[in-house]
């Protein structure tokens, strides 16, 4: 089967051969493409970027992301969690807002320096 690697903007077009002997990947410019194809077939993972509301002046919302990938199936659970979160003070960029979100071992961090 054909697959497009989403790890980086190169967007390598992968040829993936999934047989009893395992997964064979061709067409990836780097190793991350092979790893991507492996997990995409078994348990697709995504990093998620979004925003949370704040009560801080000049920042109605502040941008956030997961500091790693979470299962694709949990994206909307994460989005719901974010919609229930309010940030009430200025925090430096990279601050963890939600630790171990949805028991994924991944944190939600801010991605804007609030000046």
């Amino acid at each position, binding site marked *: 089967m054909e697959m497009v690697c989403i790890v980086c*903007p190169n967007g390598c*077009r992968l040829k993936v051969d999934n047989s009893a002997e395992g997964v064979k990947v061709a067409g990836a410019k780097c190793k991350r493409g092979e790893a991507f194809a492996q997990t995409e077939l078994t348990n697709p993972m995504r990093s998620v*970027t*979004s*925003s949370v509301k704040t009560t801080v002046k000049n920042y109605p919302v502040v941008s956030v*992301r997961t500091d790693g990938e979470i299962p694709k199936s949990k994206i909307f659970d994460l*989005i719901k969690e974010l919609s229930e979160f309010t940030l009430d003070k200025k925090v430096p*960029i*990279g601050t963890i807002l939600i630790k171990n979100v949805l028991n994924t071992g991944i944190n939600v961090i801010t991605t*804007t320096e609030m000046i």
Partner: protein
Amino acid sequence: MKHYDVIIIGGGPAGLAAAIRASKNASVLLIEREARLGGILKQCIHDGFGVVRFGEKLSGPEYADRFIKEIDKTNVEISLLSFVTDVTRTDKYELTYVCENGVRRVTCDKLILATGCRERTKNGIFIQGDRCSGVYTAGAAQNLVNMMGVMPGKRVVILGSGDIGLIMARRLTFEGAEVLGVYEAKPTPSGLTRNIHQCLRDFDIPLYLSKTVTRVFGANRLEKVEISDVDDKMRPIPGTEQIIECDTLVLAVGLIPENELANDLSVKLDYKTKGAIVDQNCQTLSDGIYACGNALHVNDLVDYVSESGETAGGNASLPNKERKLVPVEVKGKIMYIVPQMLDLNSPLDKVITYFRASEDLTGQKLTVKVGGQTVFNKSYLKLLPPEMERVVIDYSKADLSSGRIVISLEDK
């Protein structure tokens, strides 16, 4: 009037990189019209920035922050909430700008245009119909959602499959809107393939090719849009009209380099890139004026925006030198190349050249010839117009003063 060696207009990724680099050798003023540095990156909260440069997948604000922290360590003077209203050429450049302290006049030896690009609007693509609210450019919708925390609407049609349109499809879905579909007049998507996958396919958002919005309806607020099939010249086909009820139309129909100041200064533009014609130092055909980033040509990776900013900033901070310019010609299915000129009095061993194919191509060979002699070639399995290519060409061993320089793309 205060004098600077270099003045940079625009505090986005290109201007930041240019300022940091120029400040190593020169006095620098950076003029930014918004309250914060970072340009469009501030609202591009999705990730994928900096893969080339930092080997990390950063969000836009994080990428910008790396440069803002860097610029804070330099002696670059930064003027925020400042808008340039006039640039006049004397023996140097005289700028007038409006800022919080009123009107200020300054002069400089070198001027760097890092003004970014603009979105095409509804008028730019000739959509007929009512003048109702609910029609946004993708960047405006992105600003509302990501900066203001305001939703532009609930039922959304997106016209154009450029990257911002695709990213907004996912973003609006996250925030609870129903994205009814992305419509693209061309037979192929405009955005990066990975964005088609991670922004549309992941969320079952349909992508319709060879279709466009031909009319909008709504008394006050948008109520519905008319979609038509288009032929191979992108003309709507009568009889194929279809009505879709929606309250929001997001236009992601392309970006055009911002060149108002360049035009005022009669800087020669390339009709293909719609940005200035430059040499390998990002200097335009007007001595002392540089262009970089999306003002030069619309990039798809910010990493290369920063790179061209550094090229411009580095060169602008050096003393004036007489230039000897020769054109780089293009042959075959190349949409454009940057730089379009070479200065033979500047280093020629590492000429960073960007190009785009003019159509979807497979099995291509890029060849650079000087007077018939091949100085560089590279093979490509696949080339797509939305995906810009970058090559570094060494011209130093070629005799550039006699032969024509031709970059061509041919079937392998």
